[in-house]
């Protein structure tokens, strides 16, 4: 039970001293962090940096979900895996690395594919959820599950030299469906296998996901509710744009929701929740 941790040990004071002296964090914020839990869905290019910085910051409990095993082609961007861990589950690999950095955190690896049957039951045990997945079906599934469970969703994505970041379902802001009521046609969706990605681009976005999760967990305001960050690594530009409010007609978070339990997202999107066997284009 995380809430029983109400006093910082001397060891914690030494470990977190550089962030304890920040007035926005302080002892109160550090205790908050230690009493909160974050679920990271996807132990890949986004999930690796997000996991290690959340562990470093002293989040109370960190869950990491991934159905996949480490491959050589992951290592150009998934920086917590190692050559020796090729073939082992990514969730265990990420948690192994985080554990070595900060054994005070409670770690829970989930070697499974998130789906309509298991998602709600898993998410309900966490305070903040990170979307670090790599496909459209998983993004709708996570969105709906977070709306139904009432959890903020810190969403990151990256492709080629570009990245995007926003926070859904938080403090009156929109959910993913408010912005995108209809899924994109499968032939317009490109994944990292097909389109490529420079490894450090999800690195930057994953770090920003950790930052927003830390701010939310420590009781500060997130900067990206109802705001979308666009990053272009080729041009070295970042741009924050205002997006719509929560939509009253949204099928899952609106005033008269028709999606009251999780649906079949692969059917809804016309594509599988698996980066590896999708069609390519844009």
């Amino acid at each position, binding site marked *: 039970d995380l809430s029983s941790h109400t006093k910082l040990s001397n060891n914690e004071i030494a470990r977190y001293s550089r962030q304890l002296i920040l007035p926005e964090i302080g002892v109160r914020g550090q205790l908050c962090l230690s009493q909160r839990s974050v679920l990271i869905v996807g132990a890949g290019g986004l999930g690796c940096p997000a996991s290690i910085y959340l562990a470093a910051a002293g989040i109370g409990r960190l869950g990491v979900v991934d159905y996949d095993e480490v491959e050589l082609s992951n290592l150009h961007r998934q920086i917590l895996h190692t050559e020796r861990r090729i073939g082992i589950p990514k969730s265990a690999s990420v948690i192994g690395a985080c554990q070595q950095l900060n054994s005070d955190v409670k770690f829970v690896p989930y070697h499974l594919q998130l789906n309509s049957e298991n998602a709600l039951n898993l998410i309900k045990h966490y305070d903040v959820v990170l979307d670090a997945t790599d496909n459209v079906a998983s993004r709708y599934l996570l969105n709906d599950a977070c709306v139904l469970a009432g959890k903020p969703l810190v969403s990151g994505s990256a492709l*080629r030299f570009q990245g995007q970041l926003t926070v859904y379902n938080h403090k009156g802001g929109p959910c993913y469906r408010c912005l995108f009521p209809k*899924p994109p046609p499968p032939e317009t969706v490109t994944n990292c296998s097909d389109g490529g990605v420079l490894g450090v681009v999800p690195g930057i976005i994953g770090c920003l996901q950790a930052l927003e999760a830390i701010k939310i967990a420590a009781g500060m305001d997130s900067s990206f509710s109802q705001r979308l960050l666009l990053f272009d690594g080729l041009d070295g530009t970042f741009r924050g*744009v205002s997006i719509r409010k929560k939509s009253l007609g949204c099928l899952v978070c609106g005033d008269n929701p028709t999606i009251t339990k999780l649906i079949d997202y692969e059917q809804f999107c016309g594509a599988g929740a698996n980066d590896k066997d999708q069609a390519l284009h844009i």
Partner: protein
Amino acid sequence: MAAGVDVSLEFSGGAELLFDRVKKHDISLPSQDKSWTLQCLLAWIRDNMLKERPELFMQGQTVRPGILVLVNDADWELLGELDYVIQPNDTITFISTLHGG
């Protein structure tokens, strides 16, 4: 007769790949009988800028699902979407959402 109007178009998130990888285009829309709404602009882009596979950008008369449209950095949803009448020197941004990670 509506006068011609100068606008900047921006494409990101991969949408620029449909426009010769150019992220910013300054264009002059010609004068026409009716006002230059975003709906007219989309038709104009389809006919004048999109060389092939328009279905990767449009669906029917609007942008395909998965593309966000901004007018001067504000979500077009606040401005009437397709019915918004373009003002001189507006910047219209088309953002294809990314899903990779």
